[in-house]
């Protein structure tokens, strides 16, 4: 009961304390609340608080504070827990802590540890212990505190020095320096150096800028009076020399933004008017401004090697000028001979000495800041030419030397290219570049390397290098070519190259001193390039003929495609024509024809027969027509070094010549055969005579074409080409020679596109031979039908194809005799499908012959007219010759 009343009372007080202002509420309400609280307290049955659980909750809470970055809270709580554990051993501590845990409301967010100071302010720190307190507590008395003497003497002789008790205590005042013991004063007066006041006064006097300006008037002009600093000429000269070195001075100011030096107008010299002095100082300032800009340019770093070389040259010249300034200063300050110090004299000296450098400074302003090219070289070159022309020898020499120093750096990649054929992929400043690094070896010379060109189509090189650009390119390409051939050992050892230096210019002696620099430099550069380019190119040309057998392959081409050896060519052609006439289905089988070609042309010396192969295409037109031969092509597999000279684009021209020759040979072959047949037949009728006449015309035409193609076009052109090839000193020249040879062949053989009508006309004329011989053979066949056995003897084994042809014709004729014999008494023409005009199917021999003759006349007239027309326009002599010769045939026909 007592406990209950105690609880009631305490609970009532707690409620009152918590309710606070609301304690003025009605008593009934208060009683209700009290009863409710009491019931809550008594009615709820809880398990007794587990102290271990509370302890672990507290520990967990402390750890939680640490994890949530509230180390202050964690440490404060932990300290309070420990204090509580020490201060109270009550058994109710876990319950109290459990109450706290239940009432705790987000302490991490809301609690501020500083609030503890409001509850219990921090105790002030204890004052430090002082000697007075120690002495007051325990005074230092007794012998034990006496000073011990450490001298070497015996203890009996020791003089005990009693120190004052205060001398070593903390907190005591600091003694004055003057009252220190004498043994501390050890600096000997002899070691101290006293400054000379006179020198100091002199230095102060020389600092005129520190003194206040005074009014100076000169006797010369009252208007020159002004408040100025009076300075001496020596001081002025010293200031000028310092200014020219780019150092800050008192007489001159520097406007760094505009890189301008201006002089101070508040100085005056004795016996010199201010206006004169101003003029001189202004001139010095102008020189100084130019030099200042030059020095500012030198201070900046440069990125490209060429600009770095230029930068180094300019810096070197600046250093030389600084040395000259030092010499001038030395002559003024400590002259070896008596010298008058004069600002004007110094001005003249400096003006002369600085003139070349100022010209260089003007160039520097024009060099682009960020450039990867060579414009500085071109600027230097132009300036040298101008200076030489104007007669400024000093400036010319200075800038020329700078130019050669820069040129040496620019020519480094050129030298590397010429000597070893190497070009850097990333080098954008060099005018030789790799165009196609992975091109075929056969295109090595033409396609792998190229000259860099600007947008204007000019060489990307200084203009003085443009004439030598192609040679430089070819020199490197020759090295690369020889290396590809594994013949680089053939190169001669590196000779002493002519140096490109100003001292070695040929115009330095008096004889050539009037020669323009452009000429002198051009010849020096030419010599330098030739020293590199000449050996490589000539060796390469020699090796192409000796090692790569260029001559042999050209011979092979001439034999195979241009009928250089007529017997060989005819052997091949006759065999080919026999196969055609035998109407073998596989006459144009490429393997068989390849074997034929190899057996014929492989006998030539120097020709590897394995390189010969024949291609066949299905040609349009009659099988027996000369146009069928356009499907036959003999290929000569040339090695890649030869293909660099005889380029693949020229091989079609060789094929066309081969084709044309085969067509001419074919016509000759057919006409010859027909002639033999006719002679053997012994016929002498009117038709025979007219056919003979026409055959003669055809033979004449074929012979003219044969002679024209071989003797007028191919042979002289080939001979000229071979001669020029042997004389060529450069692969470029060789390629050009061969290209022009091909071009000439194309033109004179009428292969050009604009000459196609004339060419086709000539081929048609050749084809008339086929038609004529065909007509003749049909006529003979008919005659044979009448006297069959008599004509058998004429058909020798060589003419088996003719017999078989006539046999077939006979069969065809006999099979169709029923249809057409009634109409015109003529047999069906087996060649109708192959002939040009299908209307000949029903023509008689005479009609056909007449038609052929008429066609011949028309085509020949057309060809002659065409040739005359193009020869007038193209001025090709060969066409004119051919036209005149063919015109004989036209005039005779008329």
């Amino acid at each position, binding site marked *: 009961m007592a406990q209950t009343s105690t609880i009631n009372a305490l609970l009532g007080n707690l409620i009152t304390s918590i309710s606070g202002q609301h304690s003025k509420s009605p008593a009934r309400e208060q009683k209700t609340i009290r009863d409710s609280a009491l019931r809550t307290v008594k009615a709820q049955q809880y398990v007794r608080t587990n102290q271990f659980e509370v302890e672990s909750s507290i520990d967990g809470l402390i750890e939680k504070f640490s994890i949530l970055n509230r180390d202050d809270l964690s440490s404060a709580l932990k300290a309070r827990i420990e204090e509580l554990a020490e201060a109270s051993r009550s058994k109710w501590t876990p*319950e109290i802590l459990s109450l706290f845990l239940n009432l705790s409301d987000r302490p991490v967010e809301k609690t501020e540890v500083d609030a503890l100071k409001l509850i219990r302010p921090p105790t002030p720190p204890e004052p430090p212990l002082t000697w007075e307190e120690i002495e007051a507590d325990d005074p230092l008395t007794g012998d034990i505190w006496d000073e011990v003497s450490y001298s070497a003497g015996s203890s009996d002789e020791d003089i005990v020095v009693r120190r004052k008790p205060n001398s070593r205590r903390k907190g005591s005042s600091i003694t004055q320096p003057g009252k220190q013991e004498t043994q501390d004063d050890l600096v000997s007066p002899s070691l101290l150096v006293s400054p000379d006041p006179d020198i100091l006064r002199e230095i102060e006097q020389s600092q005129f800028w520190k003194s206040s300006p005074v009014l100076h008037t000169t006797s010369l002009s009252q208007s020159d009076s002004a408040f100025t600093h009076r300075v001496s000429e020596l001081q002025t000269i010293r200031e000028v020399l310092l200014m020219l070195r780019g150092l800050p001075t008192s007489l001159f100011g520097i406007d760094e933004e505009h890189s301008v030096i201006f002089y101070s107008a508040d100085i005056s010299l004795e016996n010199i008017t201010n206006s004169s002095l101003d003029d001189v100082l202004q001139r010095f300032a102008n020189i100084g401004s130019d030099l200042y800009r030059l020095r500012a340019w030198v201070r900046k770093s440069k990125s490209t090697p060429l600009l770095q070389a230029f930068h180094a040259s300019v810096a070197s010249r600046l250093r030389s000028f600084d040395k000259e300034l030092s010499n001038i200063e030395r002559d003024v300050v400590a002259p070896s001979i008596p010298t008058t110090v004069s600002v004007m004299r110094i001005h003249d000296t400096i003006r002369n000495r600085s003139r070349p450098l100022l010209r260089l400074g003007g160039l520097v302003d024009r060099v682009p800041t960020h450039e990867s090219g060579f414009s500085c070289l071109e600027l230097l070159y132009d300036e040298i030419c101008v200076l030489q022309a104007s007669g400024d020898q000093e400036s010319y020499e200075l800038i020329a030397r700078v130019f050669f120093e820069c040129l040496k750096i620019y020519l480094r990649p050129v030298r590397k290219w010429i000597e070893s054929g190497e070009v850097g992929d990333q080098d954008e400043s060099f005018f030789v570049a790799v165009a196609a690094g992975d091109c075929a070896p056969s295109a090595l010379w033409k396609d792998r390397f190229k000259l860099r060109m600007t947008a204007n189509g000019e060489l990307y090189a200084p203009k003085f290098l443009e004439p030598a650009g192609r040679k430089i390119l070819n020199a490197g390409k020759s090295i690369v070519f020889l290396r590809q051939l594994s013949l680089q050992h053939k190169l001669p050892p590196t000779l002493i190259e002519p140096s490109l230096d100003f001292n070695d210019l040929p115009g330095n002696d008096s004889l050539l001193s009037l020669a323009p620099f452009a000429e002198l430099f051009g010849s020096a550069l030419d010599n330098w390039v030739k020293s590199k380019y000449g050996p490589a190119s000539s060796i390469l040309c020699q090796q192409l003929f000796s090692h790569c057998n260029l001559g042999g392959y050209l011979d092979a081409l001439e034999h195979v495609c241009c009928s250089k050896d007529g017997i060989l060519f005819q052997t091949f052609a006759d065999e080919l024509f026999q196969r055609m006439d035998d109407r073998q289905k596989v006459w144009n089988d490429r393997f068989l024809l390849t074997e034929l070609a190899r057996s014929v042309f492989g006998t030539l010396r120097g020709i590897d027969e394995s390189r010969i192969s024949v291609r066949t295409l299905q040609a349009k037109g009659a099988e027996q027509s000369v146009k069928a031969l356009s499907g036959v092509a003999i290929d000569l597999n040339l090695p890649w070094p030869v293909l660099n000279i005889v380029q693949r684009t020229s091989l079609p021209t060789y094929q066309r010549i081969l084709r044309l020759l085969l067509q001419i040979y074919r016509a000759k072959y057919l006409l010859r055969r027909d002639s033999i047949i006719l002679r053997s037949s012994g016929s002498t009728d009117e038709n025979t005579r007219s056919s003979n006449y026409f055959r003669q015309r055809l033979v004449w035409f074929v012979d003219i074409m044969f002679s024209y193609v071989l003797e007028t076009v191919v042979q002289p052109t080939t001979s000229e080409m071979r001669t020029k090839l042997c004389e060529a000193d450069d692969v470029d020249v060789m390629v050009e020679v061969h290209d022009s040879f091909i071009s000439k062949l194309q033109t004179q053989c009428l292969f050009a596109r604009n000459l196609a009508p004339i060419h086709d006309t000539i081929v048609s004329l050749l084809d008339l031979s086929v038609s004529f011989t065909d007509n003749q053979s049909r006529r003979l066949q008919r005659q044979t039908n009448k006297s069959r056995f008599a004509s058998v003897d004429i058909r020798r084994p060589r003419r088996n194809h003719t017999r078989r042809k006539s046999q077939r014709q006979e069969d065809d004729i006999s099979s169709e005799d029923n249809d057409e014999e009634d109409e015109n008494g003529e047999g069906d023409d087996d060649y109708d499908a192959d002939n040009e005009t299908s209307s000949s199917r029903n023509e008689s021999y005479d009609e056909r012959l007449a038609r052929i003759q008429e066609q011949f006349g028309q085509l020949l007239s057309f060809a002659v007219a065409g040739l005359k027309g193009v020869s007038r326009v193209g001025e090709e002599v060969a066409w004119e010759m051919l036209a005149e010769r063919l015109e004989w045939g036209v005039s005779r026909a008329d």
Partner: protein
Amino acid sequence: MSSTRQEARDNKRQPYLEVLEILGEMATLLDINITQRQLAYCVSLIENGVEPQALANVINGLRARYPEEEEVPKEHGKDESTK
């Protein structure tokens, strides 16, 4: 005699006051928002056998009923003592 008794009483009360002070600081750290007097009442109630959970419920209920009263500033120092 009375001073001795007073001294004895003070000596007896001193550790209790120190404990209260420590508990007060802990209450501040845990953001319990309780005055020293209220803390003393709570401690007394607990020492008289009241369950801390029940007492916490009563206090929370009273605070919910009288929320403004929670803004009563905390009492500083050791000037409060249990009756």
